[in-house]
């Protein structure tokens, strides 16, 4: 099943300074969002494979949109995250089917490597509901400078029979990281953790 997309939204935040201190180079967070029809709205469906296939399709599409918006090669991405909001005629499990089984592979193909788990969030909601998409370093989940989140919301989505699906990609960590922990130059990148 192909996703029936009503709209795509891509946003980029570029932070130049914080607390009067320059951020050089600026940190940049991109988020790409698809608003799709929920094919299972209003009914209980046992087999969610069609939503898993949609997750795979959107994994590639939304990651490519993020990378294009940042104007970088996929390999230059540093952190990532994903999230979904299910409109009221669906169930939370629909978000899980999109996000977890098949989405990761195409995301990692676009960004190269990506040993770390892709952090995620999901909820039910209505038009304008915001969701904080968690962010973590793509090669080593313990890199402390890259723990972050990006808030996304779409004023007119999700409608009752829709699902909002988001992927976030950065080429940087937080603006002025100084809480220690594993540094990005210390990444081994083998187990996805360190």
């Amino acid at each position, binding site marked *: 099943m192909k996703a029936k*997309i*009503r*709209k*795509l*939204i*891509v*946003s*980029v*935040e*570029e*932070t*130049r*300074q*914080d607390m009067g201190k320059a951020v050089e180079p*600026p940190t940049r967070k991109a988020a790409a969002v698809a608003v799709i029809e929920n094919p299972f709205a209003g009914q209980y469906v046992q087999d969610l494979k069609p939503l898993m296939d949609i997750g795979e399709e959107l994994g590639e599409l939304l990651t490519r949109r993020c990378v294009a*918006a940042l104007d970088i090669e996929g390999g230059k991405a540093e952190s990532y995250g994903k999230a979904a909001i299910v409109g009221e005629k669906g169930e939370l499990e629909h978000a899980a089917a999109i996000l977890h089984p098949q989405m990761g592979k195409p995301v990692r193909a676009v960004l190269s490597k990506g040993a770390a788990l892709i952090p995620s969030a999901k909820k039910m909601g209505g038009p*304008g509901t*915001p969701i904080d998409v968690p962010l973590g370093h793509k090669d080593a989940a313990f890199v402390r400078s890259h723990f972050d989140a990006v*808030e996304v919301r*779409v*004023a*007119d989505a999700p409608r009752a029979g829709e699902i909002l699906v988001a992927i976030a990609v950065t080429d940087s960590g937080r603006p002025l990281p100084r809480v220690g922990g594993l540094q990005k130059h210390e990444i081994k990148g083998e187990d996805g953790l360190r």
Partner: protein
Amino acid sequence: MPLVEVRKFATVVEEVFHEGGPPPARPLKQGACLAVIRNPYAGRYVPDILPLMKELEPLGLEMARRLIAALGVAPKEIEAYGKGAIVGGAGELEHGALWHAPGGYGMREALGGTKAIVPSSKKVGGVGARLDVPLAHINAAYVRSHFGAMEVGLPDAPKADEIVYILTMATGPRVHARAGGLQPSEIKGEDGLR
């Protein structure tokens, strides 16, 4: 200290394929560029605020160019525009009004001359405040199909001593426009109204 000090830029682009009706041949794209700047007049009443208006002109032009680039279209494909401002709590609404001239200048310059007034909205608000920024046709304010709005905002702005200045643009009419009125084909383009 320079009068215009940007803490962050944000761009957001929506690509609308349909809203439940027949998808148009070309999806509608609408976007916004936001700049978060320090309010040099925060915390006190300053009688002469016009120096900031003049200094904002390069920012207006840069934001218009960033937005056109994010939309990924040629300037001649932009059909609607708008602007707005959210002033942090230590400022006054009048500081938002400083955006009228430089915001309009930036878009007219980047779009190669336009006839219609740029519709606008403004408010005082705190971090996370949202603003509905109006959109209308660039050459004839009465073109009904192009009346729209885009809700924008940032979770971390404006802080009390900041201002968020906003530009919006769209590549066409509402996705299923059918409410009659003056049509783009009927524009005379003399007075900016019809």
